[in-house]
């Protein structure tokens, strides 16, 4: 490995995700390889069931899969399920963030929101305990919550869907991670809030040298914000490259179809 390589780079090689359903094997992700460098946003596009979520969960070590994921030249996936898993665990939640789909399921219903921030802080010792309440408020305001004190003292089931989604995002970005995996982070939010959050992400990526991997089915978001894109179809990466290239000059038949469909949608 070349040590002079740029920081905060994620390299992915030959990821496979296979689900076993009794006798049948379902190949959710086939041989995925790509890399993203610092200050870049990668958009993963694809229809439902194309393996986007499986891929991002495998990258985060939530599904055990063969393959090689390196972050800053540190092997991530290899550590999962081995004695070294502890090292990756220290990284997760601190340097590597993850925004899951479904916001309600993602918040533990027995704890208040502030407690869940405390957990992360306690685990990774990010901020001083004295400044913690202010930091939580800041994080919540950052995601467009105007009354952080109320939200902080609520349980997840007392929040609306959009609110919970924003709290999940605030939790994932609380530690200002270097690498963020986001699985449809803005689905179901108002367009204005969606804009605000994506602008925030964009700001993080460009000014705080974060690397973002964004899974979405919204081509518009990818076209507007991402630098690179990756199109998945039936578990395979059918096209990857810079956004300009893909949108102007799609080579794969499925990508052409996808872009055509979404431009018809707009007009």
């Amino acid at each position: 490995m070349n040590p002079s390589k740029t920081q905060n780079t994620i390299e992915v090689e030959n990821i496979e995700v296979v689900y076993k359903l009794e006798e049948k094997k379902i190949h959710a992700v086939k041989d995925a390889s790509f890399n993203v460098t610092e200050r870049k946003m990668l958009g993963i596009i694809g229809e439902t069931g194309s393996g986007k979520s499986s891929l991002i969960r495998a990258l985060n070590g939530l599904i055990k899969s063969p393959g090689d994921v390196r972050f800053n030249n540190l092997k991530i996936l290899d550590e999962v399920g081995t004695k070294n898993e502890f090292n990756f665990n220290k990284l997760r939640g601190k340097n590597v963030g993850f925004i899951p789909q479904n916001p309600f399921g993602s918040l533990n219903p027995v704890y208040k929101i502030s407690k869940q921030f405390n957990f992360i802080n306690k685990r990774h010792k990010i901020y001083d305990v004295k400044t913690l309440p202010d930091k939580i408020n800041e994080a919540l305001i950052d995601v467009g919550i105007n009354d952080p004190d109320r939200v902080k003292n609520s349980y997840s089931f007392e929040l609306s869907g959009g609110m919970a989604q924003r709290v999940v995002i605030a939790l994932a970005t609380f530690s200002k991670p270097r690498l963020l995996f986001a699985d449809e982070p803005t689905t179901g939010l108002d367009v204005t809030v969606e804009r605000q959050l994506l602008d925030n992400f964009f700001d993080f990526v460009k000014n705080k040298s974060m690397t973002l991997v964004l899974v979405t089915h919204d081509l518009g978001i990818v076209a507007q914000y991402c630098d690179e894109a990756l199109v998945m179809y039936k578990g395979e990466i059918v096209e990857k490259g810079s956004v300009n290239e893909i949108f102007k000059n799609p080579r794969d038949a499925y990508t052409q179809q996808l872009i055509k469909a979404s431009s018809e949608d707009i007009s």
Partner: protein
Amino acid sequence: MTVVKLLLNKNNIFVTFSFFILLFFSFGSFFISFPHDPYVTDIANRLLEPNETYIFGTDEVGFDVFSRTIVAGKIDLFISLSGTIVALIIGLPLGLLASEKTRRAERIMKVLDMFQAFPLLVLAIVIVAMWGNNIRNVIFAIILINVPRFTRLIRSEALTVREKRFIEVATAMGGSNSRIIFKHLMPNILGTLLAQASITTAHSIVVVAALSFIGIGVVPPEASWGSMIRAGSQYMTTGQWWTSLFPGLAILVCVLSFNTISQFILRKYESL
């Protein structure tokens, strides 16, 4: 504090009532000065109908039914409660372990299957018959009956919670395995667990009564609802109903109280 607040709430009047009934049967006998000693027989006054001096009447050997009904609660509730609590303490880690997707988990479930293939009440009788007829062995039998139940319940609950997205998120946030079990898994199954513990205690009361009804476990002169019902059962046909009725009512009231509390806990946790 929150418990006190809940008990004082007007909507929970039945729960408060149940709570105090159980308190009364558990500890009442320490504070009440009985007009007749529950452990002293009075042959001259045997099989008296309920009257002013003996408000629940007397039984075949002249024991005062009233004082014995209350004293029996102390022992019966102690056996069923302590048996349930110990079973819970053993069953909780077992159930959590069994909810993992490992070989160890499969083995635990196999052993439980073996256990549950026996009729458990018969097993309890065998244990007490083999190891001696004392209260400790009755408690042991109660534990043995209840551990498989708790383990199964906790396993199935933990399996559902493990699939929840927030467990995955906790992993993604760097939570260690033990942390996820104690901070995320356990609090989410606590409600069901407490509710089940309450019902199990109620069931244990019936088991203890059944055991002492067939003369196992608590033996006279020590008082127990089961043995009192047995002693009175021979006289039911000849019209002396009071010797069996009052301990039977005590069992009914205690079981109902535990069920009410269990319902209440479940309702509280489901509204969360």
